[in-house]
Protein backbone atom coordinates (compact mmCIF):
# COMPACT_ATOMS: atom_id res chain seq x y z
CA UNK A 1 0.00 0.00 0.00
CA UNK A 2 2.79 2.38 0.92
CA UNK A 3 4.61 1.62 -2.26
CA UNK A 4 1.51 2.36 -4.27
CA UNK A 5 1.06 5.69 -2.57
CA UNK A 6 4.70 6.49 -3.06
CA UNK A 7 4.49 5.85 -6.76
CA UNK A 8 1.44 8.07 -6.98
CA UNK A 9 3.32 10.84 -5.27
CA UNK A 10 6.13 10.71 -7.74
CA UNK A 11 3.72 10.78 -10.65
CA UNK A 12 2.16 13.96 -9.29
CA UNK A 13 5.49 15.56 -8.67
CA UNK A 14 6.69 14.61 -12.11
CA UNK A 15 3.66 16.29 -13.62
CA UNK A 16 4.49 19.46 -11.77
CA UNK A 17 8.07 19.15 -12.95
CA UNK A 18 6.90 18.93 -16.51
CA UNK A 19 4.98 22.16 -16.17
CA UNK A 20 7.86 23.99 -14.59
CA UNK A 21 10.38 22.69 -17.05
CA UNK A 22 8.81 24.87 -19.72
CA UNK A 23 10.35 28.03 -18.30
CA UNK A 24 14.04 28.49 -19.06
CA UNK A 25 16.43 29.44 -16.26
CA UNK A 26 15.03 27.06 -13.65
CA UNK A 27 16.33 23.63 -12.69
CA UNK A 28 14.15 21.28 -10.71
CA UNK A 29 15.12 19.01 -7.86
CA UNK A 30 13.10 16.54 -5.84
CA UNK A 31 14.20 15.66 -2.33
CA UNK A 32 12.96 12.76 -0.24
CA UNK A 33 13.25 13.56 3.47
CA UNK A 34 12.98 10.83 6.08
CA UNK A 35 11.23 12.70 8.85
CA UNK A 36 12.33 10.34 11.64
CA UNK A 37 16.06 10.48 10.81
CA UNK A 38 16.56 13.65 8.80
CA UNK A 39 18.20 11.75 5.95
CA UNK A 40 17.75 13.40 2.55
CA UNK A 41 18.05 11.76 -0.85
CA UNK A 42 18.00 13.37 -4.25
CA UNK A 43 15.03 11.72 -5.95
CA UNK A 44 14.90 13.79 -9.09
CA UNK A 45 13.15 12.49 -12.16
CA UNK A 46 13.23 13.67 -15.74
CA UNK A 47 10.79 16.40 -16.72
CA UNK A 48 8.28 13.91 -18.07
CA UNK A 49 9.41 10.86 -16.13
CA UNK A 50 7.89 8.64 -13.49
CA UNK A 51 9.88 6.36 -11.25
CA UNK A 52 9.69 4.43 -8.03
CA UNK A 53 11.60 5.83 -5.14
CA UNK A 54 14.13 3.18 -4.11
CA UNK A 55 14.47 4.58 -0.59
CA UNK A 56 11.80 3.00 1.63
CA UNK A 57 9.38 5.28 3.41
CA UNK A 58 10.72 5.72 6.92
CA UNK A 59 8.93 4.79 10.11
CA UNK A 60 7.94 8.40 10.59
CA UNK A 61 7.00 8.87 6.96
CA UNK A 62 8.75 10.59 4.08
CA UNK A 63 8.25 14.03 2.66
CA UNK A 64 8.87 14.65 -1.03
CA UNK A 65 9.73 18.23 -1.93
CA UNK A 66 9.75 19.68 -5.41
CA UNK A 67 12.15 22.61 -5.70
CA UNK A 68 13.08 24.86 -8.55
CA UNK A 69 16.40 26.68 -8.48
CA UNK A 70 17.60 29.66 -10.48
CA UNK A 71 21.29 30.03 -11.18
CA UNK A 72 21.37 33.79 -11.46
CA UNK A 73 21.09 34.55 -8.61
CA UNK A 74 21.41 31.15 -6.95
CA UNK A 75 18.04 30.88 -5.23
CA UNK A 76 15.55 28.12 -4.56
CA UNK A 77 11.78 28.06 -4.47
CA UNK A 78 9.67 25.30 -2.95
CA UNK A 79 6.96 24.46 -5.47
CA UNK A 80 5.20 21.53 -3.90
CA UNK A 81 5.45 18.94 -1.16
CA UNK A 82 3.83 15.56 -0.61
CA UNK A 83 3.98 13.52 2.54
CA UNK A 84 3.75 9.74 2.62
CA UNK A 85 3.37 7.77 5.82
CA UNK A 86 1.19 5.32 7.70
CA UNK A 87 -2.14 6.81 8.81
CA UNK A 88 -1.25 10.17 7.33
CA UNK A 89 -3.95 11.84 5.23
CA UNK A 90 -3.15 12.72 1.64
CA UNK A 91 -3.51 16.40 0.83
CA UNK A 92 -2.81 18.84 -1.95
CA UNK A 93 -2.69 22.63 -2.19
CA UNK A 94 -2.90 24.43 -5.53
CA UNK A 95 -2.92 28.20 -5.94
CA UNK A 96 -4.39 29.93 -8.98
CA UNK A 97 -3.93 33.49 -10.18
CA UNK A 98 -4.63 35.44 -13.36
CA UNK A 99 -0.95 35.33 -14.33
CA UNK A 100 -0.10 32.07 -16.12
CA UNK A 101 3.63 32.46 -15.37
CA UNK A 102 5.45 29.52 -13.79
CA UNK A 103 7.00 27.70 -12.11
CA UNK A 104 6.81 30.22 -9.28
CA UNK A 105 3.24 31.45 -9.03
CA UNK A 106 2.71 35.17 -8.85
CA UNK A 107 0.16 37.94 -8.93
CA UNK A 108 -0.11 41.63 -8.13
CA UNK A 109 -0.93 43.35 -4.85
CA UNK A 110 -4.36 44.44 -6.06
CA UNK A 111 -5.39 41.20 -7.76
CA UNK A 112 -7.32 38.14 -6.54
CA UNK A 113 -6.09 34.58 -6.19
CA UNK A 114 -7.62 31.33 -5.03
CA UNK A 115 -6.36 28.32 -3.11
CA UNK A 116 -7.65 24.85 -3.86
CA UNK A 117 -7.22 22.34 -1.04
CA UNK A 118 -7.98 18.64 -1.28
CA UNK A 119 -7.75 16.15 1.57
CA UNK A 120 -8.37 12.41 1.68
CA UNK A 121 -7.59 9.64 4.10
CA UNK A 122 -9.04 11.23 7.23
CA UNK A 123 -10.45 8.71 9.70
CA UNK A 124 -13.70 9.25 11.55
CA UNK A 125 -14.41 6.22 13.73
CA UNK A 126 -14.84 6.82 17.42
CA UNK A 127 -11.91 4.58 18.21
CA UNK A 128 -9.58 6.33 15.79
CA UNK A 129 -6.95 8.48 17.44
CA UNK A 130 -7.75 12.18 17.35
CA UNK A 131 -4.75 13.20 15.23
CA UNK A 132 -6.00 11.03 12.36
CA UNK A 133 -9.32 12.85 12.21
CA UNK A 134 -8.20 16.26 11.00
CA UNK A 135 -5.45 18.29 9.42
CA UNK A 136 -4.62 21.92 9.96
CA UNK A 137 -4.38 24.51 7.22
CA UNK A 138 -2.17 27.48 7.98
CA UNK A 139 -1.89 30.72 6.03
CA UNK A 140 1.41 32.54 6.31
CA UNK A 141 2.34 35.94 4.89
CA UNK A 142 5.83 37.34 4.53
CA UNK A 143 6.95 40.68 3.17
CA UNK A 144 10.10 40.87 1.05
CA UNK A 145 10.70 44.42 2.33
CA UNK A 146 11.30 47.53 0.26
CA UNK A 147 12.59 46.53 -3.17
CA UNK A 148 13.02 42.92 -1.98
CA UNK A 149 12.81 40.10 -4.47
CA UNK A 150 12.50 37.10 -2.19
CA UNK A 151 15.92 35.72 -3.04
CA UNK A 152 17.28 33.63 -0.15
CA UNK A 153 14.21 34.44 1.92
CA UNK A 154 14.15 32.98 5.42
CA UNK A 155 10.67 31.47 5.69
CA UNK A 156 11.02 31.08 9.43
CA UNK A 157 10.24 34.79 9.68
CA UNK A 158 6.84 34.41 8.04
CA UNK A 159 3.80 35.58 9.97
CA UNK A 160 1.00 33.13 10.70
CA UNK A 161 -2.14 34.97 9.64
CA UNK A 162 -4.91 32.43 10.13
CA UNK A 163 -5.31 28.72 10.74
CA UNK A 164 -8.20 26.30 10.65
CA UNK A 165 -8.95 22.59 10.67
CA UNK A 166 -10.20 20.34 7.95
CA UNK A 167 -12.13 17.45 9.41
CA UNK A 168 -13.67 15.85 6.34
CA UNK A 169 -12.30 14.40 3.15
CA UNK A 170 -12.99 16.49 0.08
CA UNK A 171 -11.86 19.62 -1.64
CA UNK A 172 -12.54 23.27 -1.16
CA UNK A 173 -11.52 26.55 -2.67
CA UNK A 174 -10.54 29.59 -0.66
CA UNK A 175 -10.85 32.81 -2.68
CA UNK A 176 -9.10 36.03 -1.78
CA UNK A 177 -9.75 39.39 -3.41
CA UNK A 178 -6.21 40.53 -2.68
CA UNK A 179 -3.21 39.77 -0.54
CA UNK A 180 -3.04 40.34 3.20
CA UNK A 181 0.68 41.00 3.30
CA UNK A 182 0.96 43.99 5.64
CA UNK A 183 2.32 47.31 4.43
CA UNK A 184 1.90 51.03 4.95
CA UNK A 185 1.11 51.44 1.26
CA UNK A 186 -0.93 48.49 0.05
CA UNK A 187 -0.09 49.32 -3.57
CA UNK A 188 3.54 48.64 -2.84
CA UNK A 189 3.53 45.45 -0.81
CA UNK A 190 5.77 42.72 -2.14
CA UNK A 191 6.16 39.32 -0.58
CA UNK A 192 4.53 35.95 -0.57
CA UNK A 193 1.59 34.07 0.85
CA UNK A 194 2.02 30.43 1.79
CA UNK A 195 -0.68 27.86 2.51
CA UNK A 196 0.50 24.75 4.33
CA UNK A 197 -1.33 21.67 5.55
CA UNK A 198 -0.03 19.84 8.59
CA UNK A 199 -0.96 16.47 9.99
CA UNK A 200 -0.93 16.01 13.72
CA UNK A 201 1.63 14.25 15.85
CA UNK A 202 1.01 10.58 16.52
CA UNK A 203 2.84 7.88 18.41
CA UNK A 204 5.46 7.33 15.73
CA UNK A 205 5.30 10.57 13.84
CA UNK A 206 5.69 14.20 14.73
CA UNK A 207 3.73 17.05 13.20
CA UNK A 208 4.29 16.75 9.47
CA UNK A 209 3.79 19.21 6.65
CA UNK A 210 1.80 17.18 4.15
CA UNK A 211 1.28 19.83 1.49
CA UNK A 212 2.31 23.40 0.86
CA UNK A 213 2.22 25.99 -1.89
CA UNK A 214 2.99 29.67 -2.14
CA UNK A 215 2.36 32.64 -4.40
CA UNK A 216 4.51 35.71 -4.90
CA UNK A 217 2.86 39.12 -4.67
CA UNK A 218 4.37 42.02 -6.61
CA UNK A 219 3.55 45.73 -6.24
CA UNK A 220 1.33 47.86 -8.43
CA UNK A 221 3.39 49.90 -10.87
CA UNK A 222 3.49 53.68 -10.85
CA UNK A 223 4.91 56.18 -13.26
CA UNK A 224 5.41 59.87 -13.91
CA UNK A 225 5.49 61.92 -17.10
CA UNK A 226 7.71 64.93 -16.57
CA UNK A 227 8.63 67.66 -19.03
CA UNK A 228 5.06 68.48 -19.93
CA UNK A 229 2.66 70.28 -17.60
CA UNK A 230 -1.10 70.13 -17.55
CA UNK A 231 -2.62 72.64 -19.97
CA UNK A 232 0.75 73.70 -21.37
CA UNK A 233 0.69 75.47 -24.71
CA UNK A 234 3.20 74.03 -27.15
CA UNK A 235 4.08 76.49 -29.85
CA UNK A 236 6.96 74.86 -31.67
CA UNK A 237 8.76 71.54 -31.12
CA UNK A 238 7.47 69.10 -28.53
CA UNK A 239 9.56 69.18 -25.35
CA UNK A 240 11.64 66.26 -24.16
CA UNK A 241 9.56 64.09 -21.82
CA UNK A 242 11.07 61.92 -19.11
CA UNK A 243 9.10 58.81 -18.20
CA UNK A 244 9.88 57.46 -14.74
CA UNK A 245 8.60 53.92 -14.20
CA UNK A 246 8.58 52.12 -10.87
CA UNK A 247 7.75 48.50 -10.01
CA UNK A 248 6.68 47.48 -13.49
CA UNK A 249 5.09 44.04 -13.36
CA UNK A 250 7.62 41.36 -14.41
CA UNK A 251 5.53 40.41 -17.43
CA UNK A 252 4.28 43.66 -18.93
CA UNK A 253 4.37 46.03 -21.84
CA UNK A 254 4.50 49.70 -20.97
CA UNK A 255 4.10 52.53 -23.44
CA UNK A 256 3.09 56.15 -23.89
CA UNK A 257 0.29 57.08 -26.23
CA UNK A 258 -1.20 60.36 -27.43
CA UNK A 259 -4.64 61.14 -28.75
CA UNK A 260 -6.77 64.15 -29.54
CA UNK A 261 -9.01 65.53 -26.83
CA UNK A 262 -9.46 65.34 -23.10
CA UNK A 263 -8.28 62.37 -21.00
CA UNK A 264 -10.57 59.42 -21.36
CA UNK A 265 -10.12 55.79 -20.30
CA UNK A 266 -10.25 53.22 -23.04
CA UNK A 267 -9.09 55.40 -25.91
CA UNK A 268 -6.53 53.86 -28.26
CA UNK A 269 -4.14 56.53 -29.46
CA UNK A 270 -0.83 56.69 -31.25
CA UNK A 271 2.18 55.17 -29.54
CA UNK A 272 5.00 57.63 -28.94
CA UNK A 273 8.19 56.40 -30.63
CA UNK A 274 10.75 55.01 -28.20
CA UNK A 275 8.28 54.65 -25.37
CA UNK A 276 7.49 50.95 -25.57
CA UNK A 277 9.13 48.81 -22.90
CA UNK A 278 8.58 45.06 -23.03
CA UNK A 279 9.42 43.08 -19.89
CA UNK A 280 9.70 39.34 -19.47
CA UNK A 281 11.38 39.12 -16.09
CA UNK A 282 10.96 37.26 -12.85
CA UNK A 283 10.89 40.30 -10.57
CA UNK A 284 9.51 43.87 -10.97
CA UNK A 285 11.62 46.44 -12.76
CA UNK A 286 12.08 50.21 -12.54
CA UNK A 287 13.26 52.23 -15.52
CA UNK A 288 13.58 55.78 -16.81
CA UNK A 289 12.90 56.55 -20.48
CA UNK A 290 13.48 59.75 -22.38
CA UNK A 291 11.16 60.73 -25.22
CA UNK A 292 12.21 63.28 -27.79
CA UNK A 293 11.69 63.95 -31.45
CA UNK A 294 8.17 62.59 -31.46
CA UNK A 295 6.49 65.56 -33.12
CA UNK A 296 5.47 63.45 -36.09
CA UNK A 297 2.78 61.56 -34.15
CA UNK A 298 1.07 64.85 -33.28
CA UNK A 299 -0.32 65.53 -36.71
CA UNK A 300 -2.77 68.32 -36.02
CA UNK A 301 -3.31 71.28 -33.77
CA UNK A 302 -5.55 71.41 -30.74
CA UNK A 303 -5.96 69.70 -27.40
CA UNK A 304 -3.95 66.47 -26.94
CA UNK A 305 -3.63 63.99 -24.12
CA UNK A 306 -0.50 61.96 -23.39
CA UNK A 307 -1.02 58.77 -21.36
CA UNK A 308 1.36 56.33 -19.72
CA UNK A 309 -0.09 52.82 -19.89
CA UNK A 310 1.08 49.41 -18.75
CA UNK A 311 -0.34 46.18 -20.08
CA UNK A 312 -0.15 43.16 -17.78
CA UNK A 313 -1.96 39.83 -17.51
CA UNK A 314 -4.53 41.74 -15.45
CA UNK A 315 -5.44 44.32 -18.12
CA UNK A 316 -4.25 47.82 -18.98
CA UNK A 317 -3.51 50.27 -16.20
CA UNK A 318 -3.20 53.98 -16.75
CA UNK A 319 -0.30 55.19 -14.66
CA UNK A 320 -0.22 58.87 -15.60
CA UNK A 321 -1.61 61.37 -18.09
CA UNK A 322 -1.29 65.00 -19.05
CA UNK A 323 -3.17 67.20 -21.52
CA UNK A 324 -1.64 70.01 -23.50
CA UNK A 325 -2.53 72.40 -26.29
CA UNK A 326 -0.62 72.24 -29.51
CA UNK A 327 -0.54 75.27 -31.74
CA UNK A 328 2.30 75.22 -34.22
CA UNK A 329 0.58 77.55 -36.69
CA UNK A 330 2.60 80.62 -37.53
CA UNK A 331 0.52 83.54 -38.72
CA UNK A 332 2.40 86.13 -40.72
CA UNK A 333 0.74 89.49 -41.02
CA UNK A 334 2.22 91.41 -43.91
CA UNK A 335 1.45 94.45 -45.90
CA UNK A 336 2.61 94.98 -49.46
CA UNK A 337 2.78 98.52 -50.70
CA UNK A 338 4.29 100.33 -53.66
CA UNK A 339 5.65 103.84 -54.12
CA UNK A 340 2.97 104.65 -56.57
Amino acid at each position, binding site marked *: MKIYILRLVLVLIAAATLASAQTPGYTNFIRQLQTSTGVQR*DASVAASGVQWSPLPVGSGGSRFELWTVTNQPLASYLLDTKYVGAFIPVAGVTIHSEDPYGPVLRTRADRPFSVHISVSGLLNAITDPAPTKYVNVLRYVQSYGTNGTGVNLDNSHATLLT*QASITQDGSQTLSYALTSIPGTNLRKVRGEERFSLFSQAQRQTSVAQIASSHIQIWPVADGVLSGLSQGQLIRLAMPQVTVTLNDLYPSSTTYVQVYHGNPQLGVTGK*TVPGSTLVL*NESVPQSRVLTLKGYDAVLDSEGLWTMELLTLTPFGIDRLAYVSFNLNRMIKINSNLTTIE
Partner: protein
Amino acid sequence: MPKQHRGSKVVRQAFAWPVAVQCAWLAGLAAAAPPVMKDAATHEQLALQLRKCQQEDPMHRLPPSRAEPPPKQAQDLISQSDVLCFGGIATLVPKHAVLLLPKAMANRSEFTAGSTLMGWAEFYAKNRGWITTVEVTNEQAAGTQPLDAEVSLRLKGSICVVVATYQGGPISVLSPKASPSAPTPSDPIQSNPSKH
Protein backbone atom coordinates in the same frame (compact mmCIF):
# COMPACT_ATOMS: atom_id res chain seq x y z
CA MET B 1 17.75 44.47 -8.00
CA PRO B 2 18.91 41.19 -9.47
CA LYS B 3 17.73 40.33 -12.93
CA GLN B 4 16.90 36.70 -13.39
CA HIS B 5 15.91 37.07 -16.99
CA ARG B 6 17.27 39.66 -19.30
CA GLY B 7 14.27 39.84 -21.52
CA SER B 8 13.45 43.52 -21.45
CA LYS B 9 13.97 45.87 -24.29
CA VAL B 10 12.94 49.26 -25.45
CA VAL B 11 11.27 49.20 -28.83
CA ARG B 12 12.31 52.22 -30.80
CA GLN B 13 9.77 52.07 -33.60
CA ALA B 14 7.23 54.76 -34.11
CA PHE B 15 4.38 52.47 -35.06
CA ALA B 16 1.51 51.34 -32.93
CA TRP B 17 1.43 47.75 -34.16
CA PRO B 18 4.13 46.29 -31.79
CA VAL B 19 1.99 47.33 -28.84
CA ALA B 20 -1.04 45.80 -30.46
CA VAL B 21 0.85 42.54 -30.86
CA GLN B 22 1.90 42.62 -27.23
CA CYS B 23 -1.66 43.43 -26.21
CA ALA B 24 -2.95 40.46 -28.08
CA TRP B 25 -0.29 38.16 -26.67
CA LEU B 26 -0.70 39.15 -23.04
CA ALA B 27 -4.45 39.35 -23.27
CA GLY B 28 -4.51 35.91 -24.78
CA LEU B 29 -2.52 34.61 -21.85
CA ALA B 30 -4.72 36.25 -19.28
CA ALA B 31 -8.20 35.68 -20.59
CA ALA B 32 -10.23 35.50 -23.72
CA ALA B 33 -11.76 38.91 -23.01
CA PRO B 34 -9.95 42.00 -24.29
CA PRO B 35 -7.90 43.85 -21.68
CA VAL B 36 -9.81 46.46 -19.73
CA MET B 37 -8.20 49.84 -19.21
CA LYS B 38 -8.46 51.41 -15.79
CA ASP B 39 -6.57 53.73 -13.52
CA ALA B 40 -4.13 51.96 -11.22
CA ALA B 41 -5.67 51.19 -7.83
CA THR B 42 -4.95 53.57 -4.96
CA HIS B 43 -3.94 52.65 -1.42
CA GLU B 44 -7.32 53.82 -0.12
CA GLN B 45 -9.20 51.63 -2.57
CA LEU B 46 -7.09 48.63 -1.64
CA ALA B 47 -7.43 49.28 2.09
CA LEU B 48 -11.21 49.27 1.74
CA GLN B 49 -11.11 46.11 -0.31
CA LEU B 50 -8.76 44.42 2.15
CA ARG B 51 -11.01 45.23 5.10
CA LYS B 52 -13.92 43.62 3.34
CA CYS B 53 -11.77 40.67 2.31
CA GLN B 54 -10.61 40.07 5.86
CA GLN B 55 -14.17 40.20 7.17
CA GLU B 56 -15.13 37.53 4.65
CA ASP B 57 -12.03 35.39 5.13
CA PRO B 58 -12.95 31.95 3.74
CA MET B 59 -10.79 30.31 6.40
CA HIS B 60 -13.40 31.43 8.95
CA ARG B 61 -15.85 29.01 7.36
CA LEU B 62 -13.64 26.11 8.42
CA PRO B 63 -13.59 24.70 11.96
CA PRO B 64 -11.10 26.49 14.16
CA SER B 65 -7.78 24.76 14.61
CA ARG B 66 -7.35 22.71 17.76
CA ALA B 67 -3.59 22.45 17.62
CA GLU B 68 -0.59 24.59 18.33
CA PRO B 69 0.99 25.81 15.09
CA PRO B 70 4.11 23.82 14.25
CA PRO B 71 7.48 25.49 14.65
CA LYS B 72 8.46 27.47 11.60
CA GLN B 73 11.31 26.09 9.57
CA ALA B 74 13.46 27.77 6.98
CA GLN B 75 12.57 26.52 3.53
CA ASP B 76 15.60 26.82 1.34
CA LEU B 77 17.14 24.06 -0.72
CA ILE B 78 20.50 25.79 -1.04
CA SER B 79 21.15 25.73 2.70
CA GLN B 80 20.25 22.02 2.79
CA SER B 81 22.63 21.19 -0.05
CA ASP B 82 26.24 20.97 -1.05
CA VAL B 83 27.22 22.47 -4.37
CA LEU B 84 29.42 20.72 -6.90
CA CYS B 85 30.57 23.03 -9.65
CA PHE B 86 33.12 22.72 -12.42
CA GLY B 87 33.54 23.86 -15.98
CA GLY B 88 30.50 26.12 -16.01
CA ILE B 89 28.05 23.49 -14.77
CA ALA B 90 26.84 22.76 -11.28
CA THR B 91 24.52 20.56 -9.27
CA LEU B 92 23.13 20.31 -5.76
CA VAL B 93 23.37 17.24 -3.56
CA PRO B 94 21.96 16.80 -0.05
CA LYS B 95 24.18 18.13 2.71
CA HIS B 96 26.47 15.41 4.12
CA ALA B 97 26.32 13.50 0.84
CA VAL B 98 29.86 14.60 -0.03
CA LEU B 99 32.02 12.21 2.00
CA LEU B 100 35.34 13.49 0.76
CA LEU B 101 36.42 16.75 -0.80
CA PRO B 102 40.17 16.78 -1.45
CA LYS B 103 41.81 20.08 -0.68
CA ALA B 104 42.92 20.44 -4.27
CA MET B 105 39.28 20.43 -5.30
CA ALA B 106 37.92 22.60 -2.51
CA ASN B 107 36.88 25.30 -4.97
CA ARG B 108 34.59 22.80 -6.72
CA SER B 109 32.22 22.98 -3.79
CA GLU B 110 31.59 26.66 -4.47
CA PHE B 111 29.04 27.88 -6.94
CA THR B 112 30.57 29.97 -9.70
CA ALA B 113 28.21 32.73 -10.79
CA GLY B 114 26.62 32.05 -14.13
CA SER B 115 27.14 28.28 -14.02
CA THR B 116 24.37 26.19 -15.50
CA LEU B 117 22.51 24.07 -12.95
CA MET B 118 21.58 20.51 -13.76
CA GLY B 119 20.38 17.38 -12.03
CA TRP B 120 22.80 14.96 -10.39
CA ALA B 121 22.64 12.25 -13.05
CA GLU B 122 23.55 14.62 -15.88
CA PHE B 123 26.25 16.36 -13.87
CA TYR B 124 27.84 13.10 -12.73
CA ALA B 125 27.85 11.73 -16.26
CA LYS B 126 29.92 14.74 -17.36
CA ASN B 127 32.30 14.71 -14.40
CA ARG B 128 33.19 11.08 -13.76
CA GLY B 129 36.84 12.02 -14.04
CA TRP B 130 36.93 13.66 -10.62
CA ILE B 131 33.82 12.38 -8.87
CA THR B 132 33.38 8.89 -7.54
CA THR B 133 30.41 7.47 -5.66
CA VAL B 134 30.01 5.15 -2.72
CA GLU B 135 26.81 3.18 -2.32
CA VAL B 136 25.54 3.22 1.25
CA THR B 137 22.69 1.42 2.93
CA ASN B 138 19.63 3.02 4.44
CA GLU B 139 21.02 2.27 7.91
CA GLN B 140 24.41 3.77 7.10
CA ALA B 141 22.76 6.91 5.79
CA ALA B 142 20.74 7.20 8.99
CA GLY B 143 23.86 6.72 11.09
CA THR B 144 22.69 3.55 12.77
CA GLN B 145 25.48 1.56 11.10
CA PRO B 146 29.01 2.70 10.32
CA LEU B 147 30.38 2.83 6.82
CA ASP B 148 32.12 -0.33 5.63
CA ALA B 149 35.83 -0.58 6.39
CA GLU B 150 36.53 -0.89 2.69
CA VAL B 151 34.80 2.42 2.10
CA SER B 152 36.90 4.05 4.78
CA LEU B 153 40.03 2.83 3.03
CA ARG B 154 38.81 4.20 -0.26
CA LEU B 155 38.16 7.54 1.35
CA LYS B 156 41.68 7.65 2.73
CA GLY B 157 43.30 7.05 -0.61
CA SER B 158 40.96 8.82 -2.96
CA ILE B 159 42.02 11.87 -4.90
CA CYS B 160 38.50 12.34 -6.20
CA VAL B 161 35.44 13.93 -4.66
CA VAL B 162 33.44 11.10 -3.08
CA VAL B 163 29.64 11.29 -2.99
CA ALA B 164 27.44 8.89 -1.03
CA THR B 165 24.59 7.45 -3.08
CA TYR B 166 21.65 5.18 -2.47
CA GLN B 167 20.83 3.33 -5.66
CA GLY B 168 22.47 6.05 -7.70
CA GLY B 169 20.90 9.05 -5.98
CA PRO B 170 23.01 11.25 -3.69
CA ILE B 171 22.05 10.74 -0.06
CA SER B 172 23.09 12.42 3.16
CA VAL B 173 25.11 10.26 5.53
CA LEU B 174 24.58 11.16 9.16
CA SER B 175 27.18 10.62 11.84
CA PRO B 176 27.03 7.11 13.34
CA LYS B 177 25.14 7.05 16.61
CA ALA B 178 26.18 3.64 17.93
CA SER B 179 29.88 3.50 17.25
CA PRO B 180 31.78 6.71 17.92
CA SER B 181 35.01 5.22 16.56
CA ALA B 182 33.55 4.48 13.18
CA PRO B 183 34.44 6.78 10.29
CA THR B 184 32.08 9.67 9.82
CA PRO B 185 31.76 12.40 7.24
CA SER B 186 33.50 14.77 9.63
CA ASP B 187 36.43 12.50 10.57
CA PRO B 188 39.92 13.95 10.14
CA ILE B 189 40.58 11.64 7.18
CA GLN B 190 38.04 13.57 5.23
CA SER B 191 37.27 17.08 4.28
CA ASN B 192 33.59 17.68 3.97
CA PRO B 193 31.88 20.91 2.93
CA SER B 194 28.88 20.04 5.15
CA LYS B 195 30.78 20.33 8.43
CA HIS B 196 28.94 23.37 9.65
